[in-house]
C-alpha cells in the first residue's frame, strides 16, 4: 500500500540519520519541497472546511470557504511552479535564481497563511499571490490513540452502517473516489 510505503521511508530516514551523522550540502531543495508540503496540508484542511461549511447549509459560509480553498490551490500552483524553477536553477548551478525561486515559494505560502489586504497584495514571480488560509480552532483534547483503536472505531461505524440496512449498491456515477 502506498501510504505504508511512505511511512516505511520515514522510518528508514530516521535510522540512516542516526548512524550517518550530518554531512550536509550547503543548499538544497528540501527547503522548497518542505514548504510545498506545508501548503499541500493547508489545501487539504481548506477542503475539509468547505465540507464543514456545507453541513451548515449557509451559502455564504460555503462560498467563503470555497474561496479560501481556491486561493490556497492557486498558491500551491505557484509554489509548485517555483519549485520546478528552483530545481532547474540548482541543476544549472545558479544559486541566485534558486534563492529567488525559494523566496517566491515562501511568499506564496505566507500569502496563503496571512492574506494581504487589496492595497498591499504582493506579486510573486510576476503573478498575483493567492490569498486564503484556514485553520482549526478545536481545543487540544488529544488522548493517545493506537492504530488498533482507530481501526476498531472505523469498523464499528461500518458495521453500524451495514446493519442499519445498507445494501451493496455502488456509489452514484460521478462520485468515484480517487485512491491515495
Amino acid at each position, binding site marked *: *500500500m*502506498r*501510504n*505504508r510505503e*511512505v*511511512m516505511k*521511508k520515514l*522510518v528508514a*530516514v*530516521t535510522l*540512516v540519520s542516526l548512524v550517518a*551523522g*550530518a*554531512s*550536509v550540502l550547503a543548499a538544497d*531543495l*528540501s527547503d522548497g*519541497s*518542505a514548504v510545498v*508540503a*506545508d501548503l*499541500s*496540508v493547508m489545501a*487539504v*484542511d481548506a*477542503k*475539509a472546511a*468547505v*465540507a*464543514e461549511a*456545507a*453541513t451548515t447549509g449557509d451559502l455564504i459560509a460555503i462560498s467563503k470557504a470555497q474561496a479560501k480553498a481556491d486561493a490556497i*490551490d492557486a498558491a*500551491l500552483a505557484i509554489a509548485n511552479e517555483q519549485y520546478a524553477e528552483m530545481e532547474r536553477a540548482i541543476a544549472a548551478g545558479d544559486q541566485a535564481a534558486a534563492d529567488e525561486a525559494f523566496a517566491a515559494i515562501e511568499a506564496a505560502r505566507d500569502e496563503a497563511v496571512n492574506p494581504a489586504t487589496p492595497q498591499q497584495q504582493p506579486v510573486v514571480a510576476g503573478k498575483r499571490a493567492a490569498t486564503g488560509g484556514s485553520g482549526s480552532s*478545536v*481545543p487540544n*483534547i*488529544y*488522548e493517545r*490513540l*493506537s*492504530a488498533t483503536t*482507530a*481501526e476498531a*472505531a*472505523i469498523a464499528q*461505524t461500518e458495521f*453500524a*452502517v451495514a446493519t*442499519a*440496512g445498507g*445494501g*451493496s*449498491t*455502488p*456509489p452514484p456515477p460521478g462520485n468515484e*473516489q*480517487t*485512491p*491515495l
Partner: protein
Amino acid sequence: MKREKCIALLVMCGLAANLSFAGKKAADPSVEASKAVARAEQAVAQTKAAIEASKALVGGVSGNAALMAEVKEMLRATTDDWEMAIAALDQAKKNAERVASSKDEVMAKDYARLTKLNAGIAISGAKVVSTGLYFVEAAASGKVESLDVIRGAMSAARVSAESVRVSSERTIGLIEAKYSK
C-alpha cells in the same frame, strides 16, 4: 536639548534593531517540532471525536439504501487515511524526541523537518477522514443539497492529500540524500 533627543533616537533605533533581529532569528527546532506535534494531535483528536459522533448518526441514513451504500463506501475509503494519520502522528512524536536529544544542530533541524512532515501527513489524513464524516452528518440530517458540495470537497481533498504525499516523499528523499553521502 537637541543632543538628548538624538541620544533618545539612537537608543530607540538600537532597540528596534534588536527586536528586528530577534524576530528573524531561526526558530528553535525543538519548539517547532513540539508545535507541529501539538497541531497533529489536535487534528487527530478532533477526528476521533467526529468518528465517535458519527456512529450515532449512521442510523439516520438507513431510509435511503443508495445513500447508505455511498456512506459505507466513503467510510471504507477513509480507513487507510485514518491508519496513516495515526502512524504519522506516532512517527512525528518519535522524531520530535530525536530533535531534543540531537547534539548536532543540522541534524536537529532535519529531525524537526521530518517531524513537521509527519505531522502534516497526520493532519492531512485526519482532515480527509473528517471530510468523509461531514458527508455522514449531512446525509443523516437529510441535507441532500449539501451532499454534492461535500462530494466535490472530498474529491478535491484527495487530490490535495496526494500532493501532501508526493511533496512529503520528495522532501524525505532529499533529506535522506544528505546523509547517504
